[in-house]
């Protein structure tokens, strides 16, 4: 919980709020009440803490990446969320929401997924807490990510291929919202990022903000001072808000969010909602999104499935407007270069999502060094591991090697 927003009606400045059918308001109100109670309930916090520690494997380590640092011209520390159970920061959110589902007396969760990471994490939490789990996934994605479909089914979840609209992540969210409107009495919508109608952005943030709380203490222990900058990738924005939030009051710590620039923001083929989008409403919140002149959502493009979403959580829109955080796009090519660099210098295969944060850190390092007149310290949220991306990376570098 924090006093850094949102306000009572769920707004971060002019962003956020609730742009949903009236039929969902009662459920959102119930969720808001229960989540606020849970955040101050010792029993809930003890159980959440126990699962995070014994099951998910947190606190994740903060690792000084010495060889990478030598190349970057900065002291780079990696917050190793890739080592968590299920391989990403997402396990924190799903455990929190699944516990909350049980607390509300609901027996069924639904979730959306793009490439399948949040779907697998949701299916994992559902198995652990004995909840029925239905995952909506774009039909095209179910074919491309057949292994993740198999994982979800092994964990006992039902995967529903979505055949409407553009058959991508945003349509999977639409279908999940339709299910939720219909089955709201029995069902919790376990949204995968810090977006959507209030209280989701604040609630998801509070479930993942341990990332920043841990990192802040770990960097103080390791270096005796706060970092000069914190870097994270931003799609919907949960890993970024998770690591940013504890640092927001530390005004000397620069916060950098790196959006998916795809082929380049100027090409129109990207997923950079803040740097390349405009103000609007999508999936229940007022925020920045990719849209045409008539307010129709434009499909996003990124090599990273986890960042391939045409909007962004409202708290990021607000942090952008207040100037507290800086958002920049990172292209597919920049991200893949950073991906390979981390593989070769540290023996860590990062998620392509997290590679955007690495690439951004490499970009800001010389500027920061010049500004500070010394070697800067940067904490990078390594939000997920890259096992899932081996095929994509193989194709990418195969193509490049062929051209060399």
């Amino acid at each position, binding site marked *: 919980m924090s006093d850094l927003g949102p306000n009572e009606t769920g707004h971060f400045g002019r962003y956020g709020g609730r*742009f*949903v059918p009236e*039929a969902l308001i009662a459920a959102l109100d119930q969720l808001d009440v229960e989540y606020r109670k849970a955040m101050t309930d010792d029993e809930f916090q003890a159980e959440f803490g126990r699962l995070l520690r014994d099951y998910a494997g947190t606190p994740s380590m903060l690792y000084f990446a010495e060889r990478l640092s030598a190349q970057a011209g900065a002291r780079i520390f990696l917050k190793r969320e890739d080592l968590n159970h299920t391989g990403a920061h997402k396990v924190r959110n799903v455990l929190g929401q699944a516990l909350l589902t049980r607390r509300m007396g609901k027996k069924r969760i639904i979730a959306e997924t793009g490439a399948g990471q949040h779907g697998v994490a949701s299916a994992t939490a559902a198995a652990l807490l004995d909840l029925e789990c239905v995952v909506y996934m774009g039909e095209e994605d179910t074919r491309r990510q057949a292994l993740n479909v198999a994982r979800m089914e092994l964990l006992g979840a039902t995967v529903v291929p979505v055949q409407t*609209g553009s058959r991508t992540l945003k349509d999977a969210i639409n279908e999940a919202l*339709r299910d939720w409107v219909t089955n709201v009495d029995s069902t919790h919508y376990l949204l995968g990022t810090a977006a959507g109608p209030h209280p989701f952005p604040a609630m998801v943030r509070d479930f993942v903000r341990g990332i920043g709380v841990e990192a802040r203490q770990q960097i103080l222990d390791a270096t005796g001072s706060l970092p000069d900058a914190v870097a994270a990738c931003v799609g919907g924005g949960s890993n970024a808000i998770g690591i940013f939030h504890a640092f927001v009051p530390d005004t000397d710590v620069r916060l950098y969010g790196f959006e998916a620039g795809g082929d380049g923001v100027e090409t129109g083929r990207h997923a950079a909602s803040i740097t390349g989008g405009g*103000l*609007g*409403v999508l999936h229940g919140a007022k925020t920045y999104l990719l849209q045409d002149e*008539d307010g129709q959502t434009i499909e996003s493009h990124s090599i990273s499935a986890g960042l391939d979403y045409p909007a962004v959580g409202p708290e990021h829109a607000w942090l952008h407007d207040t100037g507290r955080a800086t958002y920049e796009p990172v292209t597919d090519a920049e991200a893949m270069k950073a991906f390979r660099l981390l593989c070769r210098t540290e023996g860590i295969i990062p998620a392509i999502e997290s590679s955007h944060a690495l690439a951004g850190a490499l970009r800001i390092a010389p500027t920061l060094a010049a500004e500070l007149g010394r070697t800067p310290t940067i904490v990078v949220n390594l939000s997920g591991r890259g096992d899932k991306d081996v095929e994509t990376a193989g194709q990418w570098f195969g193509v490049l090697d062929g051209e060399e």
Partner: protein
Amino acid sequence: MLVGYLPAGFPTVDGGIAAIRAMVEAGVDVVEVGFPYSDPVMDGPVIQRAAEAALAGGVRAADVLRTVEAVADAGASILVMSYWNPIERYGVAAFARDLAAAGGAGLITPDLIPDEADEWIAASDEHGLDRVFLVAPSSTDERVRMTTAACRGFVYASSVMGVTGARDQTSSAAPVLVDRVRRLSADPALPVAVGLGVRDGAQAAEVASFADGVIVGSALVGCLLGAPDLDAGLSALRTLTADLAGGVTRTSS
């Protein structure tokens, strides 16, 4: 009161205009002109398909307003039904101005609650437009009071929990919700219209027995979706509308 929904731009802009005129001639009292949107979370498969086709055909905001203008003199009250982002993008004040200028009576907003509607309430007041918000079986008494107080024209009771076109034959939620709305509304004259997946005259008569308005969408859109050509679609649309209007009149008289 029979309320009929058709999306603008389906099957074409002119075809959509012809369809609305046919529907009005056959007995619809109020028209909801749908603003096709890329992410219609409240809509079931039939309306989604039509909206997708309209968008694929290139329908624009100006086409929605042109549709309103072209049917404004047909003899029914013409409202636009739109998800919020297209209105937000157009500019709330500008849309209210242009909708009023086109002869539109107001706007139905399925994903805008009065809590978020300050700008729209001001703009609709300025241009004398109706604003139709939704109530649901899960709405608390306090929210029903607040929402009906913000409505003008009528209130839309989405009486099945679910998307458009869904129908639960055994649902008793609709009469209960209508009764609650009437009891809680500060304005006893505010009509209550019910959307309940009505498909024929008999069902329309049943809903008209307890509600002021019967809203039909998916069944009407289905006439156009299922037809081999526009003429056949218009013919099916006239037949169904007359059947629905007969059902509503039968009960109301």
